[in-house]
């Protein structure tokens, strides 16, 4: 690894055109050749802007006010055209679908090479190299839409990599992927960094992965560089991280919790390997005590609110998306549906609302077949908050948006005003009532959509991937809302692959894989069932993996779900009888 800085950011400040505030403020940062730098920080911290400044898109594409200087491989990013910089800085973005532009894997990789006027023989040579570098061999002729999420992002990396750049800049490349896709992308980036010596700058909310792969972590907040240091030093500062709404890896949280409980906790590990390696030292000071966990699922009683019987669905292209699903949901349950992309989660819940018709089987709500109802009628009883808030916003004020459904249901006058008021209050949106929904932040937009669905007062609420694209605090806020609604008597279903967010919220877990239910169990059992989870390419949260390692080492049962629970299972050796 060389020591000369490849990327130089000198007193960088930047303001987007028509923006009130600076997006970046006095940022000074150098990246060495061959380094892996992680960028963390809450939404709006300036991570994306910093990534775009490295490729010259900021300010060349957007305009705006740019102060200071950025150089990559000695080239000034303001003066060098983006198309020329592209041969030194490769960019990979968040959305796998918008960044793929060609009709086959090889054409996708060829695109940039054709643009820089390489001859076909050289293009072919580089395609072969790039395909191998990201392990997509054998898929050269495939259409990008036939690839999985992880494969798509690896293709985007290959397409940028083919220009043989020195720096690879990735802006939240895994935020829309399931865990297996996410692992593929991280593994690929790590290999490119370690084996080919490519310098990497990667912005992400995935603390556990960054902790394992990055040489240094830069924490950004409100456009400023708060600190840059090794993962172990950055993630071991809970005060700093919580002030900037950034989540440390769970094993670090465990050590912090030990310290909070007055137990001796030396320097916190940030990866699973570090945690297991440093356990011996920890063990000399603290010891496990017997702890019990109540099975928190009450036995089902009464007729089910929602009942699925032998449900099958075959798509027009012949894909068997659901293969005989049977499921009962009682009133007042909070359940989470897990599974990799394509497991059939969304397809299943769309049948509850008759957005899809079963190929075989039936869905009953309150004992009545949904086949006898219109979508609009079912929507009153089952509120469905789908993935992208922006395609669910049609009105020019928050208030009108929340009242949209009520007017469709024929409500008006004081009754409507009262319901809107109630819904705005529940979601904490009263102050935004006359603003345009699209002028709000992403987290607030998501709450507008929930408020709009909630106004219909449905008995069941379904959230489809509510935490995708939200930072840690935004995700927690949405889940807190779901818990409040659950406590108010609603039946809640959450579709997700963010397993670490579920403890404290969901009680029952349904794991789906390839159109069948693999597991239907209380959360404590489900998150510890590694064979089933890995069967649908999910892995349990880091703390559960650590607890499983501990359990087998100490020959005890440790069905913990959170760092706090695990810390509660220990006591100090000093001072104990």
């Amino acid at each position, binding site marked *: 690894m060389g020591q000369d800085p490849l990327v130089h950011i000198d007193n960088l400040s930047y303001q987007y055109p028509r923006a009130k505030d600076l997006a970046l403020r006095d940022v000074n940062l150098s990246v060495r050749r061959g380094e892996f730098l992680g960028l963390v920080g809450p939404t709006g911290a300036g991570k994306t802007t910093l990534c*775009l400044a490295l*490729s010259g*898109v900021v300010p*060349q*594409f957007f305009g705006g006010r740019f102060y200071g200087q950025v150089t990559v491989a000695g080239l000034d990013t303001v003066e060098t055209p*983006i*198309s*020329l910089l*592209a041969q030194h*800085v*490769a*960019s990979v*973005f968040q959305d796998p*679908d*918008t*960044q793929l*532009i*060609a*009709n086959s894997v*090889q*054409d996708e990789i*060829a*695109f*940039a*090479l*054709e*643009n820089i*006027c390489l001859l*076909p023989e050289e*293009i072919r040579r580089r395609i072969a190299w790039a395909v191998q570098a990201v392990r997509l061999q054998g898929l050269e002729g495939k259409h990008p*839409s036939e690839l999985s999420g992880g494969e798509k992002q690896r293709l985007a990396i290959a*397409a*940028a990599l083919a*220009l043989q750049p020195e720096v690879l800049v990735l802006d939240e490349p895994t935020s829309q992927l399931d865990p297996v896709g996410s692992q593929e992308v991280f593994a690929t980036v790590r290999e490119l960094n370690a084996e080919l010596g490519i310098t990497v700058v990667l912005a992400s909310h995935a603390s556990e992965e960054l902790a394992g792969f990055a040489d240094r972590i830069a924490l950004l907040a409100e456009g400023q560089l708060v600190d840059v240091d090794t993962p172990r030093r950055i993630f071991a500062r809970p005060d700093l991280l919580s002030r900037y709404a950034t989540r440390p890896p769970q094993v670090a949280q465990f050590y912090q919790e030990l310290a909070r409980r007055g137990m001796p906790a030396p320097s916190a590990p940030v990866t699973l390997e570090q945690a297991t390696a440093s356990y011996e030292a920890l063990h000399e000071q603290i010891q496990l005590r017997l702890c019990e966990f109540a099975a928190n699922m009450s036995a089902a009683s009464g007729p089910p609110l929602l009942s699925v019987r032998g449900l099958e*669905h075959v*798509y*027009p*292209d012949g*894909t068997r*998306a659901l293969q005989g699903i049977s499921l009962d949901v009682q009133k007042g349950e909070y359940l989470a549906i897990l599974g990799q992309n*394509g497991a*059939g989660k969304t*397809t299943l819940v*769309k049948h509850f609302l008759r*957005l*899809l018709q079963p190929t075989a089987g039936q869905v009953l709500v309150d004992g009545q077949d949904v086949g006898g109802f*219109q*979508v*609009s009628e079912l929507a009153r009883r089952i509120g469905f908050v*789908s993935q*992208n808030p*922006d*395609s*669910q916003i*049609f009105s020019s004020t928050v208030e009108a948006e929340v009242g*949209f459904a*009520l007017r*469709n249901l024929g409500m008006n006058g004081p009754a409507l005003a009262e319901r809107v008021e109630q819904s705005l209050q529940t979601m904490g949106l009263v102050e935004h009532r006359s603003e345009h929904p699209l002028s709000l932040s992403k987290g607030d937009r998501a709450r507008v959509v929930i408020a*709009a669905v909630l106004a*219909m007062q449905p008995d069941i609420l379904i959230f489809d991937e509510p935490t995708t694209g939200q930072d840690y605090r935004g995700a927690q806020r949405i889940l807190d809302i779901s818990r409040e609604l659950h406590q108010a008597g609603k039946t809640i279903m959450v579709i997700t692959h963010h397993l670490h967010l579920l403890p404290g919220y969901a009680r029952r877990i349904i794991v789906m894989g390839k159109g069948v239910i693999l597991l239907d169990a209380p959360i404590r059992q489900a998150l510890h069932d590694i064979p089933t989870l890995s069967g649908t390419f999910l892995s349990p949260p880091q703390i559960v993996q650590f607890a499983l390692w501990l359990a087998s080492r100490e020959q005890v049962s440790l069905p913990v779900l959170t760092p706090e629970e695990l810390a509660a299972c220990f006591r100090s050796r000093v001072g104990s009888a």
Partner: protein
Amino acid sequence: MLPQQGGQRMTWRTIGSLRESPLQRLDVRSKLAFLLATTFLAFLWESPLLTGLLVALILLLCLIAGIRMAYLRQMLRLMLPFYAIVLLTHGFWNTSVGRTAIWAAPQGWWLIGGKLRLTSEGLVYGLMVVFRTLSLILVIPLVIFTTDLNQLIVGLVRIGLPYKVAFTFSATLRFVPLLLEEIGSISEAQRLRGLALEKMNLIKRLQVYARIAVPLILGAMTRSQQLEIVLATRAFCGSPQRTFLQEPRLRGLDYALVVLCLGVSLVALWLRLRTGLGRFVMP
């Protein structure tokens, strides 16, 4: 609506052609020659029999290419009101061919009594116009669905279109499935908020469609900005010196098709001028 895809993404393949066929292996330029020839013939001929045969030929090719029946049905359903108007206008008012009345307004009817006549020739002429437009409507998806968009760009550049224009054309085509998908998800979200289209009159429905436009346009703008950024970071500058990985090559079959298209067009023109073949005649 198009076939529902649920959790699945929509692409040209899911709405268009699914099968590998000889048509996909043809060069885009020879397919463009075919498109031009059929357009020429559709306008040259006024004979319902010949235009009808032309439609039948294109339909057959569509089936060979594996264009989805659902798509063809959808196109027909959209065009149906237009065809009804064409048939009726020609039936009632085409005085240049209309002779034999099959129905006439009774004398006593105000204004139109005794004057308005529905002629069999007019109806058949209308049918010919329907065939003519049908052949155009069917031949365009036949070419687009069986052509790789990249090949389309290269083909267009090779026949003299600037690269930027060709790229914009193909980028627009690429966005069609994405837009259709977006429309689907917006209208789904509206139904999930109690909107019951099936219970609405036409004016209300139009208002609902107008509401879809706002999120749709905003979404499309965001997407096109993202696309521009992606293109810039992939060294795209629309340079005319740009190279192509797959230089299109005209093969024997392509030459044969171009020659055939040209030959048939010339012969048809000659026959039309010399013998009048293709003139309007009642079958």
